[in-house]
C-alpha cells in the first residue's frame, strides 16, 4: 500500500468514527452482581425499562466480577475506559481509595435533587461517605447503595424439626444444637475454610464479645487491635473443629462447595451472607430452609450493599443519576425483595416472596438498632486475604488461637500505625 493510500484510509476511519460518535449517545453501565442473584435479575429488568425510556441512547451493559474490580478497579477508573455508571466495591480500600484520588463525581447535590434523602437515612449512608483520605463515615457522598446484606446462619428446617431442635437464641443453644447433630452422626456446620465464610464465622463469633467501642475502634483503625473478641472467636472455632462440629477438611473447601453441602441437605447449617439467597431459593427444592442471626448482643456482620458510583469521566452523569433513582424507586425495591433480595426501602406490604420479605425485615431490624458491624477485612487493605490464610491456619491446626490473634494484631497494628 502506498503511503498516500494509507493516510487516506486512516483519515476515512477517523472521520467515520467521529461521525458515529456524534450520531448516537452511548451510555456504558457495569455491574458485577451475578445474573441469577436478586440484584442481577432486578437490575436486568430495570435496565430494560431504562432502555425503553431512552430510545435515542445506546446502552452498553458489561458484566464484571467482584474480583475484577477489587483487583484493578482503581486503574480502570483512572483510565479513559471507565463507564458512565458502575457498581463499585464499598470500603476504604476500594471506593474510599478512588474517591480520595478524585476519580469519582460527588453525589451530594443529586442526593437531595433526586429525592434520595427521602428514601435513605443517614445510617445507610455510612459507606457512601468517604473523607479526603478515603475513610468511610464522613465526607461527601460518593456512591449510593440500593440493597443491604448481612451474614446469618442458613438452616435446614426439616433437619431441625426431625432432630427436635429449636432455633438458637444464644451461643450456648447454638452449641447444644451442634452437639445434638454431631451425636446423630451429622457434621452440623458447612464451612468454606479456604474461602470467605471462614472470616464471616470468625467475625460473627467475635461480635458476641464486642461492644460499641470495640467495633468503632476496630473498623475505624482508631487503636491497636484489642484481641480479646478475636481470641474468643478463634478458641471457639478450634473447639468446634475438635468436637467435630466443623470438618477438619474444611480448609480444602471453598464457599460454593460448602454451600453445596447445605443445599444438598448434607449439612444442616451454613453461615454466610445474603448473597446466597437467590441461589438457595432456586436450587433448594426438597426441604424447607430459613435463616437466623448468629446470636450476638448487638452487632451482626453486615452492611449496606456495594455502591453505584459515577466516575469522574462519565459523559452522562444525569443518566447515571436517573439510573440510581430508578433502582431506588418502590417498584424496583419491591421487585428486588420479590426476587429474594435484601431491599433497603421496600414496602413490606407489597412484597410477596417470603424469603425477600424476611431478609428485608431482618436487615431493617439490624440497621434500626445500629447493629451493622461491617466486615472484618475492611479496616486494613489486603486483610481479606490475610484472614483467609490465617483462618485456614487456625482450622488446620498450624496456628494456635494465641498465635492466630498475634498474627492478626501484627498486620492490623502495622496498618493502624502507618495510616
Amino acid at each position, binding site marked *: 500500500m502506498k503511503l498516500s493510500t494509507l493516510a487516506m484510509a486512516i483519515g476515512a476511519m477517523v472521520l467515520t468514527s467521529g461521525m458515529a460518535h456524534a450520531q448516537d449517545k452511548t451510555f456504558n453501565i457495569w455491574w458485577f452482581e451475578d445474573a441469577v442473584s436478586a440484584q442481577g435479575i432486578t437490575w436486568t429488568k430495570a435496565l430494560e425499562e431504562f432502555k425503553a425510556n431512552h430510545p435515542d441512547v445506546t446502552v452498553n451493559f458489561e458484566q464484571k466480577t467482584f474480583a475484577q474490580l*477489587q*483487583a*484493578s478497579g*482503581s*486503574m480502570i*477508573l*483512572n483510565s479513559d475506559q471507565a463507564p458512565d455508571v458502575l457498581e463499585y466495591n464499598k470500603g476504604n*480500600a476500594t471506593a474510599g*481509595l*478512588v474517591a480520595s*484520588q478524585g*476519580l469519582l463525581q460527588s453525589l451530594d447535590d443529586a442526593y437531595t435533587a433526586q429525592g434520595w434523602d427521602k428514601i435513605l437515612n443517614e445510617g445507610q449512608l455510612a459507606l457512601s461517605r468517604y473523607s479526603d483520605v478515603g475513610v468511610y463515615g464522613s465526607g461527601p457522598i460518593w456512591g449510593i447503595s440500593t440493597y443491604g446484606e448481612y451474614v446469618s446462619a442458613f438452616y435446614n428446617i426439616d433437619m431441625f424439626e426431625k432432630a427436635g431442635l429449636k432455633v438458637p437464641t444464644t451461643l450456648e443453644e447454638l452449641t447444644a444444637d451442634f452437639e445434638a447433630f454431631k451425636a446423630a452422626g451429622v457434621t452440623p456446620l458447612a464451612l468454606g*475454610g*479456604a474461602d470467605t465464610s471462614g472470616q464471616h464465622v470468625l467475625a460473627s463469633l467475635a461480635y458476641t464479645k464486642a461492644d460499641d467501642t470495640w467495633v468503632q475502634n476496630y473498623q475505624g483503625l482508631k487503636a491497636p487491635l484489642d484481641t480479646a473478641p478475636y481470641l474468643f472467636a478463634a478458641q471457639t472455632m478450634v473447639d468446634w473443629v475438635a468436637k467435630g462440629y466443623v*470438618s*477438619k*477438611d*474444611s*480448609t*480444602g*473447601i*471453598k464457599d460454593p*462447595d460448602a454451600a453445596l453441602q447445605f443445599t444438598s441437605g448434607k449439612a444442616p447449617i451454613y453461615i454466610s451472607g445474603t448473597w446466597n439467597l437467590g441461589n438457595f431459593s432456586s436450587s433448594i427444592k426438597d426441604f424447607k430452609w430459613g435463616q437466623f442471626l448468629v446470636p450476638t448482643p448487638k452487632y451482626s456482620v453486615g452492611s449496606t450493599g456495594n455502591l453505584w458510583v459515577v466516575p469522574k469521566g462519565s459523559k452522562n452523569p444525569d443518566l447515571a443519576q436517573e439510573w440510581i433513582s430508578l433502582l431506588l424507586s418502590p417498584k424496583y425495591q419491591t421487585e428486588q425483595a420479590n426476587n429474594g433480595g435484601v431491599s433497603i426501602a421496600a414496602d413490606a406490604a407489597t412484597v410477596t416472596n417470603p424469603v425477600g420479605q424476611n431478609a428485608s425485615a431482618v436487615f431493617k431490624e439490624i440497621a434500626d438498632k445500629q447493629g451493622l458491624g461491617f466486615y472484618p477485612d475492611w479496616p486494613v*487493605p*489486603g486483610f*481479606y*486475604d490475610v484472614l*483467609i*490464610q*490465617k483462618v*485456614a*491456619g487456625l482450622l*488446620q491446626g*498450624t*496456628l494456635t488461637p494465641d498465635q492466630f490473634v498475634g498474627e492478626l494484631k501484627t498486620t492490623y497494628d502495622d496498618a493502624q500505625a502507618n495510616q
Partner: protein
Amino acid sequence: MATPSGASTEDKRSYYLYLIPGAIGFIAIVLLPQIANFALSFTAWKGVGTPRFVGLQNYEKLLTDGQFWGSMSHTLLFVISMTIIPVVLGLVLAALLFDYIRDEFGETVSSLFRAAFYLPQILPITAAGVLWGWIFNPVGVVNIILRAPGLDGLAQNWLGDATYALPAVSLVIVWIQVGYCLVVFMAGLSRIDPALYEAAELDGAGWWQRLVTITIPLLAPEIFVVVLTTLIAALKVFAPIFVLTAGGPDNATLVPSYLTYYHFFTTQRVGYAASIAVVQTILTIGLAVIFLRFQSSQAGKE
C-alpha cells in the same frame, strides 16, 4: 554457520531495518515496564495518584518479611517440580517412546502417547486448575478412589493441609510440564543417527546403556534449552498457584509472583510489590546468565 562473505557492510546495515519491529515490541513490552517497575520499587504508591519516593525502604522491609522468604523457599521446591522432575521424566519417557514403544507397537501408538503427554500444555491452565481443584477436594475423586478399597488413612485434605498442599500443587505442575520436555526431547531424538543405536545394539548395549551413552550426550543442546526455559518458568510460577490454592493454606504455597500480585492488587503497596518483582527479575536473569555461560563452555569442549 559462516556469514555470507560477499555481503558488503552497506548490505549488512540494511538488515537492521528488520530488527525494528521486534525492537519496538521489546522496548514497549519488556524494557520500558522493567524500567518503570525498577523506578517504582523506590516509591510508596497506591496504584493511583502520585508515587512518593522512599529510597531503599521497600528493600529493607523485604529483608525481614517472612512471607517473602517463605515464598523464596517454596520457589526452590518448584524448581524440583517444574525443572528437575519433568526433565528426568521427559527424557526417560521420550527415549521409551522413541526407541521402545515405537519399535514394538508402531508409530501410531507412540504418537498417541506423545499427544496425550502434551495435552496439558494445550489446556488452558485455569480450566485444568479448576478441574484439579475438584479432584483434590476433600470429597473429590482422589479421596473417593482411596476410600473405595478402604484406604481411608491415605485420603487427605490435599489442598487444605499445609503438609500436602505443596506436593499436590507440585504434582499438577509436573503433569503440565512433562509434555513440554517430552516433545522437545523427541524432536531432538529424531536428529540422532539411528546407526549409532544399531551399532550399540549389535555390541550388546541394553536400553539403559543406550540412554546413558548415546541419548543423553547427544541430546545435550535440547536438555540445556529445556532446563533453562523451565527454570525461568519455575522462578515466575503464578497461574497454577493462583487457581489451585491462592497461596494457601496459611501461605504454605506462596510464591514470589503471587506475593507481588497480592501486594500490587490487594494491599495496594505497589512500590513494595515492585521491589519483590525487581529481586525476582535479578535472580532470574542471574541464573539464566550463569546457565548460558555454563552451556557455552560445555559447547566449547565438544
